[in-house]
C-alpha cells in the first residue's frame, strides 16, 4: 500500500517523510545509503546517533580506542560501556536506536594501509578524528577515491567544519595546506573541550551527509564554518579550490597513500586554534 515501507518504518520516519525534500523517495535513498564515520568520539557520537536515527541503511564505524570514564563528558553514545571498544559500544547504541541500520564496526585504526579500501565501500565519509595526520589521511583517501567527506575539528570552545565534494570544491588540503608544527596546537587533553561542542559540530556533519544523500539543500562545500560556543557565534569563511593543491591541484604531488606522509607525531591534536 505504501511502497516498500513497513508500517513501523512509516511511523519511525513519518516526521521526515512529510518533508517535501524527503518524502518516500528520499527515505529510500537514505535506507540504501552507506556512510563511514571515522572516530566514535565526540564528533562521531552525535553524527552516528543522528545518521542512525534518520535511517542511513549502512553505517561503518571505525575506532580503535576503548571507552574511558573521561570520554563520557561529551561522547554521549557510550554510556554504561566503560572498558568496551568504542566501535562495539557505538554498534550497540545504533542497534538499540534503529534496527533498520546495518552497522559495520571496525575495531582498528584508520591507517594508510586500510584507508582507500575503507572509504571505497561508502557513499559519504565523516571525519570525526582527533589528530592532523588522520585528517590529512582521510582527505587524501577521499580525494583519491572521489568520495565526499565532511571534516570536523574541535578544541576548547571552538569548532570548525567543511565539506569536500570530489572534483567540485576545495579539499581539506586546499584550505589547510600543511599541519601546524607539533606543539603549536595543544591537544584536547591539555586544553580541554566544552562537552556540547562536538555535539554541535558532529550534528552539522550528520546534516551534511543526509543532505548529500538526499541531493537537497546546500552543503558546506567551499565554505569553512567556524563556531564559537563561548560567544555563541557562527562565522563562515569562503574557500576556493587551489590549482596548486598537492592532491587535488593541476599537478598533484600526492598520487597514492604513502605511510610516511601520515606519521603519528608525539603530539596528538584534535583541532585548530585560530590563535585566540
Amino acid at each position, binding site marked *: *500500500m*505504501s*511502497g516498500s515501507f513497513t508500517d513501523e518504518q*512509516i511511523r519511525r520516519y*513519518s*516526521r521526515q517523510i*512529510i518533508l517535501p525534500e524527503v*518524502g518516500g523517495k528520499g527515505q529510500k535513498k537514505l535506507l540504501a545509503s552507506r556512510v563511514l564515520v571515522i572516530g566514535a568520539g565526540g564528533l562521531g557520537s552525535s553524527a552516528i546517533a543522528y545518521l542512525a536515527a534518520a535511517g542511513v541503511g549502512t553505517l561503518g564505524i571505525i575506532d580503535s580506542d576503548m571507552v574511558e570514564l573521561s570520554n563520557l563528558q561529551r561522547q554521549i553514545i557510550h554510556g554504561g560501556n566503560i572498558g568496551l571498544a568504542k566501535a562495539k559500544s557505538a554498534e550497540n547504541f545504533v542497534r538499540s536506536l534503529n534496527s533498520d541500520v546495518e552497522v559495520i564496526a571496525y575495531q582498528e585504526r584508520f591507517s594508510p594501509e586500510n584507508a582507500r579500501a575503507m572509504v571505497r565501500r561508502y557513499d559519504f565519509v565523516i571525519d570525526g578524528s582527533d589528530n592532523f595526520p588522520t585528517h590529512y589521511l582521510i582527505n587524501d583517501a577521499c580525494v583519491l577515491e572521489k568520495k565526499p567527506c565532511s571534516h570536523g575539528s574541535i578544541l576548547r570552545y571552538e569548532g570548525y567544519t567543511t565539506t569536500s565534494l570530489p572534483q567540485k570544491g576545495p579539499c581539506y588540503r586546499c584550505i589547510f595546506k600543511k599541519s601546524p608544527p607539533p606543539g603549536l596546537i595543544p591537544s584536547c587533553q591539555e586544553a580541554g573541550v566544552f562537552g556540547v561542542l562536538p555535539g554541535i559540530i558532529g550534528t552539522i556533519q550528520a546534516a551534511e551527509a543526509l543532505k548529500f544523500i538526499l541531493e537537497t539543500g546546500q552543503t558546506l562545500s567551499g565554505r569553512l564554518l567556524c563556531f564559537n560556543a563561548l560567544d555563541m557565534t557562527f562565522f563562515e569563511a569562503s574557500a576556493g579550490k587551489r590549482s596548486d593543491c598537492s592532491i587535488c591541484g593541476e599537478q598533484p604531488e600526492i598520487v597514492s597513500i604513502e605511510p610516511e606522509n601520515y606519521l603519528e607525531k608525539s603530539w596528538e591534536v584534535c583541532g585548530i586554534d585560530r590563535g585566540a
Partner: protein
Amino acid sequence: MTEELDLSGEVCPYTFVKTKLKMEEMAAGEELTILLDDPAATANVSRSLKSEGHEILDLKSISCGVWQIVVKKA
C-alpha cells in the same frame, strides 16, 4: 484510472504520510480517492495535499463519520 486509499482508523500525521507515499507512486494527472474517519485528519490531509500543489476535486462526508477526498496529482 482511479486509485483508492482507505485510511480508516489512522490519525495524523500517518494519514498524510501514507497519502504522500501513495501519491509518489502515481503519475501526474492520476486521481486518488482517500477514505478517512478522523475529522481533524480530513482537514489536515486536504490542506497538506493543496500545499504540495495537488488539486482537491471533491471532499465530502459519505456516511456518518466517514469522509472522502478525491485528489488529482499535480
